[in-house]
């Protein structure tokens, strides 16, 4: 192919015209020389040349095989497709946005599923990564020297490819005199090599020479605290009071060992700051796990004989992030998004199909003008491809927005359970965009196929009559609409059940008032507080300090903070009533005298703890009382628990109202009893602050506790708002309910929109029929009823099918429901009425249009 000539199509056409003209002048001159008059000569020359149009067509045939001509015709097809889409802008925008929504939502959902369920640990071969710890036998202690020796041995053991140390902790980083508290990880230098694929954004990764004085920053920390200063590498920052040199910045995609770790401090395996450091290893791929563990145990004992008798405990890294709630919810979410995808694709298809009549007329016209069938089908393909391409672009934009939103709004629901940075999943994008384009192709090809199958003259006649269209297409459109409404119904039922579960969960009776409460946990360092007397003194200092803060009304010490912080007493329970209860887990809180008043837990019978009253006794909750002494007054009775390490006989002094921890996991909500807390708090010491009207800032409380003793460090203090603990428990059901509701709303509006547009097309198509009916004496109301019946029939069959599938889905959802039955009448009534009203609204306008056709205008149109 010689390009330059073909580039200039216009020049080539001009050349041809000039060449033919040259022939004509030569021939005319010849003929004139034979004695013909000028006009006759010219006419004869034209006759000699023959049909000019045929010459041009023959020329086109020559050019057709050329690459550029083909490209040009593809471009022309694309332009024609764009024009044809632009001619019906509202329908095209609807189709493109629905396709975009389908692609965007599905890709976003699969990205989330991938991050939470499929690849929560986005490192190469994540299943070979595991935490391994030394479990001492009874009466044995593992010294840090022995632990370091074991790590050294493991680094050379054939059982592991890598063996490193990675701990997660909290540290204060001071910037310009302000201390910010962030997650820090103490890592050995080889950790990044072990994980694999880590590239620093700035600076470099670490090596053995960095131990003890170097730190890596996260991109987020670098942006927020250092304003993305590119000169940060090599500078010194103060972490927990010691200066550290910044050697690099890690990109925000790197998340390890927790999702919000902001600092990585390089430590030596010999002197880790944690007493029981987390050893992270990568198992050798060719050694079976039992053999690897045996080898590793032997290597550890060989390295330090004091380890004889230890066992190894293995916790795969992935298991840290696999959340049972999401394991249950994932199939539901995936199913939901697939349903939405199907609804939207069916909608796009039915929208395109509904244009069949208009298209058919155009197609038959083009066919009558001589366009071959191949050409018409090619045009349909071009239109679908253009639509698909625009839809994909919209889809990427929607997906990007959704991911950005879920990152910032659902932070407690999602990133907590994954190290995956939630970037758009390209594979999912390709699959969804591909299926979206296939759906549009099918929808585009069906009209072209049907339109070109008939003889052009038959088509023209049918189109002229403007009353009926291909029966197959109409049936297909209706079937798809029924399917859409059924899917919308299914989704709506599921979403309503999830929403009601969430509402029930958040309104559930907790038995205590979580408002205006702060929980503080303080780990009093053993070196500074060796005995109960010093701990009591330390606790007293803290309490005095806290009481000084504005807004503090109550302060209560306890071991175990509600809602689920109590020590679990696991064992066989028996009471002085006949019979034993058997194995049971009960939450036991050791509480100070102010505890019940602070939480607002009312006393039902007996007495509470009083510092002045030294009589022994415990306080039980209603549930435990009911289990131990059904129907009897528990006060004054005794009960016994026999368990591992938790054995005792207790005398009941009082009965209080039960507190609850509403959660989908019912085992978290245990029966409870309360023991008196001695004068010296245990470690960690837990302090609840009840405030009125507003609580002090958590940072302020932390600063205050830190100020009471120099040996208490930032990481030893954790302050949390009590309500947040409940909210955390609600975050996942809330996210699920919100997603379900969003899916259902999209499906509902999409199918209502589909119904509306299909009916509108049908009404426009049947204008003439309605005119005849009116002329024959049908009243406007009768005509309206005709259209309404058509729409509502589709809606009713969709709802019937949808109810059946919803019933099946609701049963599968049982594990995610809280306090709501699948037969819940409120759910079903609201879903069916919402669906009924929506479809009614969708049918109303087309029906009114049908009713209001002006007969005279109709006649004039003909």
């Amino acid at each position, binding site marked *: 192919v010689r390009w330059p000539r073909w580039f200039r199509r216009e020049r080539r056409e001009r*050349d*041809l015209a*000039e*060449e*033919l003209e*040259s*022939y004509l*002048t*030569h*021939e005319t*001159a010849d003929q004139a020389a034979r004695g013909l008059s000028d006009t006759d000569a010219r006419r004869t020359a034209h006759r*000699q*040349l*023959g*049909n*000019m149009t*045929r*010459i041009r067509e*023959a*020329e086109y*045939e*020559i050019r057709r*095989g050329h690459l550029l001509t083909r490209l040009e015709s593809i471009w022309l097809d694309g332009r024609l497709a764009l024009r044809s889409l632009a001619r019906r802008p509202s329908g095209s925008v609807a189709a493109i946005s629905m396709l975009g929504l389908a692609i965007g939502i599905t890709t976003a959902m699969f990205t989330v599923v991938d991050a939470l369920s499929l690849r929560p640990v986005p490192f190469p071969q994540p299943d070979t990564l595991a935490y391994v710890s030394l479990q001492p036998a009874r009466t044995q202690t593992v010294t840090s020297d022995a632990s370091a020796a074991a790590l050294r041995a493991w680094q050379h053991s054939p059982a592991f490819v890598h063996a490193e140390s990675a701990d997660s902790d909290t540290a204060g980083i001071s910037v310009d005199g302000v201390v910010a508290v962030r997650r820090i990880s103490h890592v050995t230098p080889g950790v990044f090599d072990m994980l694999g694929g880590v590239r620093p954004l700035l600076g470099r990764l670490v090596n053995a020479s960095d131990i003890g004085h170097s730190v890596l920053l996260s991109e987020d920390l670098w942006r927020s605290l250092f304003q993305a200063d590119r000169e940060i590498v090599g500078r010194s920052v103060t972490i927990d009071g010691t200066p550290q040199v910044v050697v690099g910045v890690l990109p925000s995609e790197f998340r390890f060992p927790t999702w919000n770790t902001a600092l990585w401090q390089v430590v030596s395996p010999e002197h880790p700051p944690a007493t029981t450091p987390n050893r992270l290893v990568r198992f050798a791929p060719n050694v079976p796990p039992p053999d690897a563990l045996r080898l590793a145990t032997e290597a550890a004992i060989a390295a330090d004989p004091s380890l004889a008798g230890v066992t190894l405990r293995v916790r795969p890294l992935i298991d840290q992030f696999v959340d049972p709630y999401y394991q249950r919810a994932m199939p539901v979410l995936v199913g939901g998004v697939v349903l939405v995808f199907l609804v939207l694709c069916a909608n796009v298809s039915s929208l395109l199909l509904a244009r069949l009549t208009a298209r058919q007329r155009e197609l038959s016209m083009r066919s009558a003008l001589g366009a*071959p069938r*191949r050409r018409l089908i090619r045009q349909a393909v071009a239109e679908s491809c253009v639509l698909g391409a625009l839809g994909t672009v919209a889809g990427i934009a929607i997906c990007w927005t959704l991911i950005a939103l879920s990152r910032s709004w659902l932070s407690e629901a999602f990133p907590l359970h994954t190290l995956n940075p939630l970037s758009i999943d390209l594979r999912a994008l390709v699959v969804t965009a591909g299926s979206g384009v296939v759906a549009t192709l099918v929808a585009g090809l069906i009209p072209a196929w049907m339109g070109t199958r008939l003889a052009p003259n038959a088509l023209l006649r049918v189109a002229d009559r403007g009353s009926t269209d291909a029966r197959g297409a109409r049936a297909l459109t209706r079937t798809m609409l029924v399917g859409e409404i059924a899917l919308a119904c299914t989704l709506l039922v599921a979403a309503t059940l999830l929403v009601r579960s969430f509402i029930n969960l958040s309104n559930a009776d907790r038995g205590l008032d979580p408002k205006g409460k702060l929980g503080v946990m303080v780990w009093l360092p053993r070196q500074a507080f060796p005995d109960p007397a010093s701990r009591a003194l330390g606790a007293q200092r803290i309490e005095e300090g806290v009481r000084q803060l504005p807004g503090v009304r109550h302060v209560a010490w306890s071991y175990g903070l509600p809602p689920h912080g109590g020590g679990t007493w696991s064992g066989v329970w028996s009471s002085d009533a006949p019979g034993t209860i058997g194995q049971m887990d009960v939450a036991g809180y050791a509480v100070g005298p102010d505890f019940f008043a602070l939480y607002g837990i009312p006393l039902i019978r007996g007495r509470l703890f009083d510092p002045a009253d030294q009589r022994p006794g415990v306080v039980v909750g209603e549930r435990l009382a009911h289990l131990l002494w059904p129907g009897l007054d528990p006060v004054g009775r005794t009960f016994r628990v026999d368990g591992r390490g938790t054995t005792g006989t207790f005398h009941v002094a009082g009965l209080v109202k039960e507190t609850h921890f509403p959660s989908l996991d019912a085992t978290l909500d245990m029966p409870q009893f309360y023991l008196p807390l001695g004068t010296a708090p245990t470690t960690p010491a837990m302090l609840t602050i009840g405030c009125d009207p507003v609580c002090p800032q958590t940072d302020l409380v932390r600063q205050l506790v830190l100020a009471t003793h120099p040996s208490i460090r930032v990481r030893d203090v954790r302050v949390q708002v009590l309500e947040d603990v409940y909210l955390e428990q609600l975050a996942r059901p809330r996210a699920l309910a919100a997603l379900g509701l969003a899916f259902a709303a999209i499906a509902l509006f999409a199918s209502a929109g589909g119904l509306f547009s299909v009916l509108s097309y049908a009404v426009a198509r049947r204008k003439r029929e309605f005119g005849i009916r009116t002329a024959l004496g049908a009243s406007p109301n009768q005509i309206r009823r005709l259209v309404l019946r058509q729409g509502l029939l589709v809606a009713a069959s969709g709802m019937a099918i949808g109810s059946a599938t919803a019933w099946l889905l609701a049963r599968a959802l049982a594990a995610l429901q809280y306090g709501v039955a699948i037969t819940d009448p409120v759910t079903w009534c609201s879903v069916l009425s919402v669906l009924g009203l929506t479809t009614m609204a969708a049918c109303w306008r087309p029906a009114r249009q049908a009713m209001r056709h002006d007969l005279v205008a109709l006649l004039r149109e003909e």
Partner: protein
Amino acid sequence: MPRKTRGNSRGDFLLGTLDMLILRSVFSAPAHGHTIAHVIEKSSSDILQVEHGSLYPALHRLEDRGFISGFWGTSESNRRARYYRITPLGRKHLIAERSRWQSLVEGVSRVLGPATE
């Protein structure tokens, strides 16, 4: 609609013949379309009547395949005209076509035999 194939395999017997005739008429000297048409008619003693219009697509097809190359020039009557000259590739093609044609003619005459009354 079946796509028309290009090149020697083209089933159209006469078109191939026209290509050969065109190549022959520009063999010795460049010529323009009008001349070519008349040369073919004259040198065949008006036995072969070329539809002049079909000559031009044939010329462009040959040009497209590289057998001839076109250029604008001035004709003997001092008018602008597009001339075509044969290329080395065209010469080779003509020689091959000519021997193919001759063997075809020979074969056909043998089948027909001497003309009998």
